[in-house]
């Protein structure tokens, strides 16, 4: 008697939100209905075939799987050793290779010259991709903790292998002396790029342009939103937006690198398509939209970044990447944020404290497992995503995942799967590049609309 088993390179994943079969080498994903999943799980674990396996429809279905290269028939009891990219036990951390630190955000001040309605973030407000913004974490401004001599601190960052330092606030341009000191210290490390996330105000255009003289510096301007939709948008004299436009115009003209983030607050949500076109035309840059949204008490709620309500999925690059995604959080991996008070966080959007820089000693703050637990917090960190089979192809802002998992209004707007869409029934809610299929005993094989 021969029994059906999935191939070693197939990975079966299931939770209460649905089930999926990954063909790791073939780079395909098959969404399974419950009955189909149960059949395959049974094939994976049971020594002998269950009755239903003998049914013609099940046998026909397994024949289809054989033809798709997903499994085959083997003698009874055959052990299928699953394909792995690495030894199943990670070396215990302190013995393994160094973590690859790539980016550090350093919030050098909580001071700001604006009074945006959404800042600091209030409880119950969803802030997506806070890492790209200057939105403050909440509470009142604390005087910055001394992290010791900046050149000593920069030396530690460089020794970790950090490639990008993102200086942020509040408005870091208000801490001008300190900023200059930090940039001066950073200039000693030519491979370290420095970004300054700021509203671009509080200093003259010439002064801000002067920051580029330190080399490897880029100003990342956060626009506080487009509040008015007009066919021809004309910045008004005296408004903050005008000052920001003048800065960006100057940077563009001088051929200097910069980036633009647009805060999408509740007032500005309708203007995003307009803003995208306007910014592209004026500065030749594709802006990042960072939403900051107060959830309504009642009534419908829609996230701009989920226009059409579809959840974007991304194919893995290779075997290594697939296994990496099973275990790591793409957006956090390699980064951390040092807040104004010296506390260490996975990113500016996450409140959890992972350590504290004491006496300027960054190593001390990094010498525990908490930060790395976040890096490894694959989708299993959030209750809903833990139950979802799409983790390895769905990566997004963890702080948004966490928020969405806690609040039904947000989850409905953020992820249709999280809010209960039947993965097998309504796959239109998933956005992909043609790698997603529906597979079932009854329905056979169908390509999901891409």
């Amino acid at each position, binding site marked *: 008697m021969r029994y059906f088993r999935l191939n*070693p390179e197939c990975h079966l994943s299931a939770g209460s939100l649905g089930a999926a079969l990954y063909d790791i080498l073939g780079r395909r994903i098959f969404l399974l209905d419950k009955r189909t999943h149960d059949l395959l799980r049974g094939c994976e674990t049971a020594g002998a075939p269950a009755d239903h396996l003998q049914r013609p429809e099940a046998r026909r279905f397994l024949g289809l799987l054989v033809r798709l290269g997903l499994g085959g028939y083997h003698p009874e009891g055959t052990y299928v050793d699953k394909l792995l990219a690495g030894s199943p036990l990670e070396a215990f951390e302190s013995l393994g290779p160094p973590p690859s630190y790539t980016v550090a955000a350093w919030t050098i001040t909580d001071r700001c010259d604006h009074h945006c309605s959404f800042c600091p973030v209030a409880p119950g407000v969803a802030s997506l991709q806070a890492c790209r913004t200057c939105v403050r974490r909440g509470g009142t401004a604390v005087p910055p903790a001394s992290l010791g001599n900046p050149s000593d601190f920069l030396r530690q960052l460089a020794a970790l292998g950090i490639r990008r330092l993102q200086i942020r606030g509040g408005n870091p341009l208000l801490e001008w002396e300190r900023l200059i000191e930090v940039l001066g210290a950073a200039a000693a490390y030519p491979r370290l790029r420095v970004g300054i996330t700021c509203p671009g105000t509080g200093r003259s255009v010439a002064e801000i342009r002067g920051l580029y003289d330190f080399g490897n510096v880029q100003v990342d301007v956060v626009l506080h939103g487009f509040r008015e939709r007009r066919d021809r948008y004309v910045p008004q004299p005296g408004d903050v937006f005008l000052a920001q436009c003048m800065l960006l115009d100057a940077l563009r003209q001088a051929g200097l690198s910069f980036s633009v983030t647009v805060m999408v607050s509740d007032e500005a949500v309708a203007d995003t398509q307009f803003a995208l076109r306007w910014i592209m035309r004026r500065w030749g840059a594709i802006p990042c939209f960072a939403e900051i949204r107060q959830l309504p008490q009642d009534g419908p709620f829609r996230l701009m970044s989920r226009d059409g309500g579809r959840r974007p999925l991304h194919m893995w690059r290779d075997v290594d990447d697939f296994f990496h995604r099973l275990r790591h959080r793409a957006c956090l991996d390699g980064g951390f944020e040092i807040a104004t008070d010296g506390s260490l966080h996975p990113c500016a959007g996450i409140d959890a404290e992972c350590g504290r820089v004491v006496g300027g000693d*960054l190593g001390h703050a990094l010498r525990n497992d908490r930060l790395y637990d976040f890096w490894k917090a694959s989708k299993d960190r959030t209750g809903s995503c833990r139950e979802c089979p799409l983790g390895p192809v769905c990566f997004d802002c963890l702080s948004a995942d966490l928020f969405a998992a806690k609040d039904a209004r947000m989850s409905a707007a953020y992820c249709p799967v999280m809010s209960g869409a039947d993965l097998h029934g309504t796959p239109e809610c998933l956005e992909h590049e043609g790698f997603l299929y529906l597979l079932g005993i009854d329905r056979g094989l169908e390509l999901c609309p891409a």
Partner: protein
Amino acid sequence: MSDGSDTPAPLFEGPGDPHPALHRVTVQFASNCGNEYLYDDVTGAILPWGALEEATLRRELRDSLSEAHRRALGTADSAEATACAAQIQRWLVHLHAFARPPHPALATPAACEMRSLVWANCSELVLIVTENCNLSCRYCTYASGSYYYHRGPTGRSMRPSQAVSAVEWFLEGVGQHVARNPRKRYGLSFYGGEPLLNIAVIKHVLEFAEAQVPGLFFPVLNTNGLLLTPENVEVLREHRVHVAVSIDGPQPEHDRLRVDHGLTGSYGRIEANLIRIKREHPNYWRECLVSLSVYDPLSDVAAISRFFDDGASAIPRSAFVNAVGSHNTNYYGRFQPKDYELLSRRLHALKAEYMRREIAGDRVGSYMRNLVAAPMMLLFLRSRIHDAKSPFLPYTGCCIPGLRMAVSPDGLVNMCERVNGTYPIGDLTNGGLNYEVIARLIREYQREVLCNCSLCPITRLCGMCFSASEVCGGVKPPSGYCAGAVREAGKNLADYVSLMESSPDAQERFRSQTANVATERWLFQS
């Protein structure tokens, strides 16, 4: 019936083929119940493997096909044959599985690259604090006189200042890498002879390290246990030194092998020390003490296993069990064929008992697990396709010389405490590590040991290293080693899958047990 139309074209297309001739590196084996498998050394994967798979792979690799292979291809259901070919092609294309180019040129190490390579990857400082011992064990590589080319007792001991300079030198070397990896910790191992003969130096070093770099080191000590006096234990406990005590079994077994210079057994004295430690410091005893054991053809391994199973005794749980070293020795000359047969029967019975217990989910004692299940656990942990291996030493279990640094009382640095001491890689009295020498040793190992490894189907499973290949004045694998290693690997693979076949949750149990094994292997480097 398969025909050309639904069979994908072979990957390697005859003349003009861009792929050089590849050499197949796989091991076919069967589990106890007769299911067939293939171990692939390129990926480290194990695949169910039948006649159709074998014939298909041969066709893809353009190997010769026997009549049986043709039959397998001819009689297979066409859908199955197509799917099988597609699967094998995917493994060939995406993972370059099953075969590799023979004799690729290995990366040539240059002295200038060695400095950063060694310090970035080194894991342990071993201080040989004395070359004296208060026992005279019959199998000791060091004092028994049974091992050729091996360093022997010299009576030398390290001075406190020497030991501290060695630690300072090590800290200087690893400094920038600690900055790169704030969680990094290093082993600090006290070795001998019998290291507790020089407790003054151990204490001095521990206090120095604690004051200078608190928490950076995992201190470890290998001892025969005679000097685990209350005062010495106090020092070890205060610094949470992990201690491995050599205990070969119950008194008769232990005293047969581990005797003092007057040929008196040492068991009673060691046990008394352990009883006291367990009584006075039960947590330290439980968390930081383990036993190391060796056996020879006369060892009653079943009795020893029962001895370690006795939960009431003060003997720490077993962490390692090894056979008495068999390389460059006349130790085994004293045994008769019947001794080997007896050992083989005993091992066989113990393995059967282990399998029975593991499958039934019954408790398995620490000695039994280490003696019979260690090869299976190591298979579970085996390296896979993306586990990095140095391009200089891509095959065998050999590490780059310098990843452990064993400093002896005369200031010479050896690549570990097991090598015979005739090819040090540095001298602390004369400039520290010698990167020229390290590069030269790697080249010699490449030339003498790795010369045929690219053709070998078990390079990921092979335990060969410098110490295992030492000959007078150089390295060379013992004759017959490779054939034996491949045979042994085949047996271990068969045991491993047999266990996995019969116990679906063995995989999960292995996962939790091997975490310990991996840590302790690293700590005590056995």
